[in-house]
């Protein structure tokens, strides 16, 4: 099997070796060179591969990765403070943005939308009713907490945000409940606003 693979890969190795590429590039500019079309083909292939790599950076990550990054936000604050949290939050925002733009499954888009409601409402369409609520009722409080974490004022902001989210979301007074997304967001800002 190894021999077969070696035989199969050998011509490709020789063609795309640095020396051969240099030779092909130089010979391209020699007049009448019969290598011109072959050289074009080689660089065309390299260019196409480069384009595929670029496309890959635009592709939305798997929703499980997005979910994991979301769940790890609290830990990022615990381990690295506000700076690490801001960095991870930005990474998550980029992932959520791609997921919402990409043609992903309904489940993936719903997860991304629900995270956006609580953390990135500006990623939601302007006609989404929940966007307005988020921008009014918890986004300013989150920003205030992130700006001055661990202070008495940040604790007051957190308690206000908690009441806002509970009143907004809980559908059952006898068995009050929040979604996991809401609980995770509250946990993050609970941590951030706790005075040390």
């Amino acid at each position: 099997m190894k021999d077969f693979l070696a035989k199969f890969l050998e011509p490709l190795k020789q063609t795309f070796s640095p020396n051969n590429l240099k030779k092909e590039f130089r010979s391209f500019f020699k007049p009448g060179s019969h290598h011109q079309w072959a050289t074009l083909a080689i660089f065309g292939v390299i260019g196409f591969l480069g384009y595929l790599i670029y496309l890959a950076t635009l592709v939305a990550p798997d929703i499980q990765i997005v979910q994991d990054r979301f769940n790890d936000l609290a830990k990022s604050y615990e381990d690295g403070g506000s700076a690490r949290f801001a960095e991870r939050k930005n990474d998550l925002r980029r992932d959520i943005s791609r997921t919402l733009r990409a043609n992903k499954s309904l489940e993936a888009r719903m997860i991304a939308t629900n995270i956006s409601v609580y953390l990135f409402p500006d990623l939601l369409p302007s006609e989404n009713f929940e966007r307005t609520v988020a921008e009014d009722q918890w986004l300013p409080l989150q920003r205030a907490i992130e700006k001055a974490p661990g202070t008495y004022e940040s604790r007051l902001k957190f308690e206000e945000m908690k009441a806002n989210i509970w009143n907004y979301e809980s559908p059952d007074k006898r068995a009050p409940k929040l979604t996991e997304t809401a609980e995770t967001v509250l946990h993050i800002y609970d941590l951030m606003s706790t005075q040390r």
Partner: protein
Amino acid sequence: MLKKFAQIRGRWIWIAAVLFVSYHSWYWFAFAPKTKPHFYSPSFPVSQNFQSELILLRETKRLDGDSESRILHATVQTAKVLQIPAGLLWCLLFQESRLNHRLGMEGNIPSYGLGQFTHFGFQEINYQLNRYSTSNRSHLIRLLGSDVRPISANSATPDSLSSYFSIPTAVVTTGLYLKNRYLHLGSLLERRGIRYDPKLLWLYAVMAYNKGTRGILSFWNAEEKRLGTNRIRQLVTDPDILLDLARDRNLFTAGFARVWDRRRARSYSEELSIHLSNIAACALNPIGVTQ
């Protein structure tokens, strides 16, 4: 005549004015509120079932005459000041607690009293009362005599005006919270430039009181995605469409399913439909609705 018109100065202003009036007339008639006067019945409960249940509560002494009349008095006063349909407020209290103002006093459930208020509901009333209207505090003072906050589920002194177990406090607090839901939903629609019928919006406010504003907004988002913005206009101006929701137990499911897993979404959808049909049966004038 047309020749004369063409010679009139400012004829283009006339044409523009005619077009303007025509467009707005069409818009008004297309999306005008379709509820009749007396959409809410002046006497309540309306349906025979609720009347029978009320009689049963009296006969089994689960509701005494004094409490019942104090609840009714407080409801009428609160409804007048806060401009809530009185029947709607009464029916909400009936639906939530069967008019048991001491419900939850033992601390065995996380919600309390006439309106089944929660800890976070108290927080809104105590610390964010004027979020949706700057008049809320003055209404509270007018109805209870003073600013009695902080209000809590105080079972040690249940007759104190700061306790939610006191009848006037429970009714006023519930009314304010319901009014906030109404104002919040209204402001969201107004920001989108969507006209609504206030009488129908009260029904949505009652649903938001029961199941959270998120349930209502998720439902609106789902319907808008499915059928466009005109669907939202219909939902908030046409009572027949809204009351159909009460009959179709699954219509809210798509909205809840945007937030919850499918099983919970169906369960909440069913509960909400039942809640809406109970409120409608209790508070709506059947003649006003069906004519």
